[in-house]
């Protein structure tokens, strides 16, 4: 039996609710995007219902500590299709067992959720580390990113607390939305890039006049800090995988 949901978090939680209503036995959860009807398999379409999903979430809050609620949320943000199915079964497993069942790392779903969460947290941390702002002529610090997972909701607070006295925009180019901090609060925005602005590298005219100076100084610093006799390219690439180089000012040729 396949359960089909709309890909949203409330949808996923509603699916758990529906399962407990029906107890249909072995079920696989798929998002509508990934679902392909099969000839002899039964399927059931979950209709997202905020009342049902709120009840499931409230139930989870009673069962799980904060740390695990976060793991749950992070796994969801991975946007990986198998993760949805694991989360679905993980939730059922948690409800069917006593307090503390989430520490059973021998259980496949527990292990899977813990792994997805780790990947997402790692990506979140990488964004906190590898994002490089460019100071634009209108005074805003801007960066465009395309993270592997949907981590904007996770990094918002970090940047808000850190850069409280400067306006900034972090734009997810892949998911086509961004965060704008306006010195008071962080707001979700969408930008229309169609009028010829290069979103990854705003052209020089749009940048603050000192931007060039500091990016050159930073590149210089990066070179000076290296000890040539200790060159270790393998380690370097392990810490900064090549797919992130496009973010890094110090990795761009001037």
């Amino acid at each position, binding site marked *: 039996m396949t359960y089909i949901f709309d890909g949203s978090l409330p949808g996923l939680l509603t699916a758990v609710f529906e399962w407990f209503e029906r107890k249909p036995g072995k079920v696989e959860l798929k998002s509508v995007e990934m679902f392909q009807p099969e000839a002899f398999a039964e399927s059931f379409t979950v209709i997202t219902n905020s009342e049902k999903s709120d009840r499931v979430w409230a139930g989870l809050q009673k069962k799980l500590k904060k740390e695990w609620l976060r793991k749950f949320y992070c796994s969801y943000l991975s946007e990986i299709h198998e993760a949805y199915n694991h989360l679905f079964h993980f939730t059922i497993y948690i409800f069917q067992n006593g307090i503390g069942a989430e520490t059973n790392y021998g*259980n496949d779903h527990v292990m899977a959720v813990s792994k997805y969460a780790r990947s997402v947290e790692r990506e979140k941390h990488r964004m906190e580390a590898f994002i490089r702002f460019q100071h634009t002529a209108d005074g805003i610090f801007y960066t465009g990113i395309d993270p592997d997972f949907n981590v904007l909701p996770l990094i918002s607070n970090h940047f808000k607390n850190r850069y409280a006295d*400067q306006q900034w925009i972090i734009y997810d180019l892949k998911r086509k939305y961004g965060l704008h901090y306006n010195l008071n609060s962080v707001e979700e925005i969408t930008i229309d890039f169609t009028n010829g602005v290069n979103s990854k590298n705003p052209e020089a005219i749009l940048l603050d006049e000192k931007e060039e100076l500091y990016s050159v100084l930073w590149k210089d610093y990066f070179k000076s800090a290296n000890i040539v006799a200790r060159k270790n390219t393998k380690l370097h690439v392990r810490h900064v995988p090549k797919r992130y180089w496009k973010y890094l000012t110090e990795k761009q040729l001037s």
Partner: protein
Amino acid sequence: MSFDRIREKLNILADAAKYDVSCSSSGGTRKNDGKGLGDSHSSGICHTYTEDGRCVSLLKILLTNHCIYDCLFCVSRKSNDVKRAAFTVDEVVELTMNFYRRNYIEGLFLSSGIFKNADFTMERLLLVCKKLRLEQNYNGYIHLKTIPGASDELIKEAGLYADRMSINLEMPTEAGLKLLAPEKSHDDVIKPLAFVQQNIAQFAEDKKLIKHIPKFVPAGQSTQMVIGATPESDKDIMYTANAFYKNFSLKRVYYSGYVPISNDTRMPVLGTQPPLLRENRLYQTDWLMRFYGFKVQEILNDANPNLDVDIDPKLSWAIRNMQHFPIDINKADYKMILRIPGIGVMSAQKIIQARKFGKLRIDQLKKIGVAYNRAKHFITCVDSPYQLKDYQGTQIKAFILAESQSKYLKTDSNQLILF
């Protein structure tokens, strides 16, 4: 200030500072209350890595590389023919702020050559910190070098603005230090380390009584030793490290493989590869002491004054102490599980939690993250294959070496020949 001049200064003063290993930005607790700039991330963030694979978290610079001392192991020594430069206080402040705003760095690591005298130097370092904190409202990380010989008042005031302070031991033993830097002694380091530590303790004590007390070096102190410039054994090095961890509650001791920078005959000649493998083994030992409950005497002693080159110190301890193995994963206590080669802190904690739900099997251990091919020689679990033969430690070592390939073998051939 001209563009080219500031570039030149940064190149000189960053280049001279790079031999200081510490780049940790963890342990900072400053919060951005109000609308300042910066907020410490308790676990620290590495913003990039140099091509030698080292983390870059802080803008690590010297205020100046003019120095009145002539320590042989140091690039900035008086007699060395290098370009000299000095930043103004404002230049350092501006660089830090602008790098921080662009998310290049977690903060500033400020050290300096000694010009004129210790107090004069310390005063300027202090001035940079004060400007950042008080004028710029900066809450990012500051790692400040304590200048040995500076007055207590200056050091104490600096502690109010810095997150971490450090002084380098430089050489693992007094004899080694005397050989290369006759003007210096370990006592010069011990005195200020102890002074800062007493103040940290005092502030912590006061904090129990009075709530609003300023922070004093909240990320603690660290030190650094140069490895391989002088002929100390691994035992000498780690016993010194252990004593400093104990006596001064240090957060970290760093080990820096000596990169030859001088033609002096008392030290390895120019062109010698830095002892990267040895440095790695020392860090492994350091981790075993701090996170795995090992006593330094268990790993290094008179019978084993140097660490094995071909295997890591944890495996090497296990092989020397086969009487403790095999360990039953489903029964042994946490302390023993931590000692099994192939099992780290995270896996050990997961094992303890998971086994409450049922006895663990091999496939579960693998999923938990245990390096099973290594661990299998030292453990039993529910479905461990029955073994007729009791292998000797040396045989197990041969098995493990046969299936693993050292990442150092290719790059570091000249080091291995020594043994």
